């Protein structure tokens, strides 16, 4: 397991079962899940391999496969490569992902040869907290020794961060409890922290953060996340207020193009017709 995105119950203090909210967003008739999936899918244009957990990352990757990245291969943390599921999977280890797949790898091969071997272009991660350099916390709220809330921990998140060419983070709720100046604990460090530890990083770390307010971006070590786009109707000031540090803003902040009818149709009819994740 990598840490689930910050909507998952384990990311308490937001505890309790997922509420299945379907509130409308500024993007019009798309739900929040649809919006985030569509925006994330566009960012995968031309990418070859993506390491993704179940949920929004799978939706985004599947949609990208049908639109902007026809050669995209999803590698699952369970070891499945080239899945051709008969039905939409419910977990990263769903049996339907395995039957009919092109390959199933052992954990040692997956994490050693595929991930650490540098075969992943884009890794998807979630977190409870993120800082200005894209460092992530999925371990604890409070002190590690006696936490207020014990979160799942790294799982493979640290490896995804250290070894993917770049990392996309999807955060459902852009607010100061998640976008923090100082993390309670750094589980998955970006390249700046690796360099400070005396070790040359492999990948760029987090390059895209896709939230319910817009898109933050950075290109690698030495850079802070910058607001590059907002959803229609969202102001830059609103994003600044929702961010726990003094957020850098691009000279030209774009407005995210709302999901097109074609994208929504593919997502709803082909990718997730049972609305397993499109809650």
């Amino acid at each position, binding site marked *: 397991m990598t840490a*689930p995105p910050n909507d998952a119950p384990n990311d308490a203090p937001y505890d309790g079962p997922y509420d299945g909210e379907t509130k409308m967003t500024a993007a019009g008739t798309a739900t929040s899940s649809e919006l985030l999936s569509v925006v994330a899918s566009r960012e995968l244009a031309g990418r070859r391999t993506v390491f993704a957990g179940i949920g929004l990352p799978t939706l985004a990757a599947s949609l990208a496969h049908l639109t902007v990245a026809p050669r995209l291969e999803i590698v699952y943390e*369970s070891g*499945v490569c080239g899945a051709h599921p008969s039905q939409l999977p419910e977990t990263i280890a769903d049996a339907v992902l395995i039957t009919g797949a092109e390959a199933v790898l*052992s954990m040692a091969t997956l994490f050693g040869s595929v991930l650490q071997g540098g075969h992943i272009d884009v890794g998807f991660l979630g977190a409870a907290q993120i800082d200005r350099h894209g460092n992530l916390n999925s371990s604890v709220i409070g002190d590690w*020794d006696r936490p207020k809330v014990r979160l799942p921990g790294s799982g493979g998140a640290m*490896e995804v961060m250290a070894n993917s060419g770049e990392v996309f983070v999807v955060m459902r709720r852009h607010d100061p409890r998640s976008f923090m100046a100082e993390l309670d604990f750094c589980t998955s*460090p970006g390249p700046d922290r690796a360099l400070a530890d005396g*070790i040359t990083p492999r990948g760029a770390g987090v390059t895209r953060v896709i939230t319910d307010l817009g898109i933050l971006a950075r290109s690698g070590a030495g850079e802070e996340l910058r607001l590059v786009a907002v959803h229609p109707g969202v102001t830059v000031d609103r994003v600044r207020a929702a961010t726990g540090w003094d957020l850098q803003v691009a000279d030209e902040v774009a407005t995210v193009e709302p999901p097109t009818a074609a994208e929504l149709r593919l997502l709803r009819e082909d990718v997730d017709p049972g609305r397993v994740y499109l809650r």
Partner: protein
Amino acid sequence: MTMKDAIASFVHDGDTVSLEGFTHLIPTAAGHEIIRQGRRNLTVVRMTADIVVDQLLAGGCVTKLVSSFVGNSSAGSLGELRRRIESAEPEPLEFEEYSHYGMICRYLAGAQRLPFHPLRSYAGSDLPSVNPGIRKVTSPYPGPDGATEEIYVVPPVNPDVTIVHAQRADRSGNTQVWGLTGVQAEAVYAAKKAVVVVEEIVEDEVVRSDPNRTVIPSHAVHAVVACPRGAHPSFAQGYYDRDNAFYRSWSHISKDPARLRDWMAEWVYGTRDHAEYVAKQGEEFWAELAVGEAMSLPVNYGRRL
């Protein structure tokens, strides 16, 4: 060997016990039998500490956990684990935390009897500051830029016993797994003793018709236990599906200590063995998890003419 005998023979108070199976083939029935037999002071080693670990904690069996993920899959929380860690209730839990590849490398080092295994994780993470087992080594070769290169390493783990679940084995312990194979082979080779629990024990000829399917050879196995449906609520590829409803319900069961106690009383202490647990679920229940056929195409191993 029966599960009762296997646990009695191979799991002792104070042991380090590895239970592996990455979302697939989780050795739940073995965990329940450890609880029934009242083992104490165990160190449990498991990459994904999930429901079976929460149950072992609730059974009072565990004083220390070594893991890289403490959560109920993506379906929710582990109530007992969080109480133990967040508020030391009913007692503290010693927790040694790694990342997934850190755990895999510990098994690899253990299996190969290496003093350490290097990996490209941990650089800049706070984890080494709370886990003194994670250390650095200087490479004796120059790095890509010609400078000295440092890398993190993890120590080997050599459990007293590793318990895994598999689809099938022959009587002598040659174990075949398909679908997700996880880290089971490495965890078995890292251990001093290994117990393999299987859906079915098959004739020698079945195993020998496809030796590449054998993930764990008999020389690494000390006991074979037949225990159908012993991986519930996880799944066994080709045998039964994952019980997603139970995963979702575990957050609620484990959140309330009283409800958790009742569940343990009914389903673990209240069943003599896994056969009774299976019977108690009822036939309709298992029919819901039944799977259809998708057979592999055979390959030719060849015969000298």
